[in-house]
């Protein structure tokens, strides 16, 4: 019961915030035209997609077979961090 609540709350917050940050970063990129922010935007978009995926898993995947659905999450996390890293390193 508690576990259920934690998953639902955190995935809801995660997805909404990721969307908001995606929008902000896209607008920032458009205004400043800096490549940095392009990477950041893509990173947040991926974060948002991760949120969508997790939400889908939450409602569609039975608890027993949950582990496989974390694989895309792991991959997305790596991509996100790589992109953020690039955005920092890029002058």
């Amino acid at each position, binding site marked *: 019961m508690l576990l259920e609540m934690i998953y639902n709350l955190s995935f809801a917050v995660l997805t909404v915030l990721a969307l908001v940050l995606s929008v902000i970063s896209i607008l*920032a990129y458009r205004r400043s035209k800096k490549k940095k*922010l392009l990477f950041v935007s893509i990173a947040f978009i991926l974060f948002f997609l991760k949120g969508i995926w997790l939400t889908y898993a939450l409602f569609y995947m039975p608890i027993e077979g949950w582990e496989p659905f974390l694989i895309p999450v792991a991959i997305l996390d790596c991509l996100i961090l790589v992109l953020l890293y690039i*955005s920092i390193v*890029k*002058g």
Partner: protein
Amino acid sequence: MSGPEIEVENRKKIYQIIEDYPGLHMREIKRRAEMSMNLVRYHLGQLKKYEVVEEVEEGEYKRYYPKEGEMRVDFEDKRYLALLREEIPLNVVVYLLSRSEPASHGEIKDELDIAASTLSYHLKKMREKGLLVKEGREYWISEPEVVSNLLVKYEPPKDVIDEFIDLWESLSLSMIF
């Protein structure tokens, strides 16, 4: 920040001092600005020229006051602002403001050190927006005072997007190393 941007920053700084403490004379301004006398003199000259500040002689001192007036940003001004955010147009404007006369394509090109085609593109855009006018083969700012004022006085409210940009700009390795 590029050269012109720094120049604008400095000018803004001096203007801010004048705005906050109207009636200062040059030496006092210099002290507050922590800049060299030459630089202060140059910027004051520019500000005076485009009627952003007013110089009033009082006895042996010359005192400086901000030019009063509501800083309303007109629709046209907004178009200028958008352009002025871009590096090359800004550089062009700052360069032209520093001169007392129009400049040719070649002169601007040499000053800015950019490709001719790039410059043509931007000059055309600036003309279309009404920021520049062409007299013969030379370019000049259509409303130098307005542009000067805009450059110096106008501070768009920093919204969330700007802050986001600043954040990621500051998040660079140069901060550490």
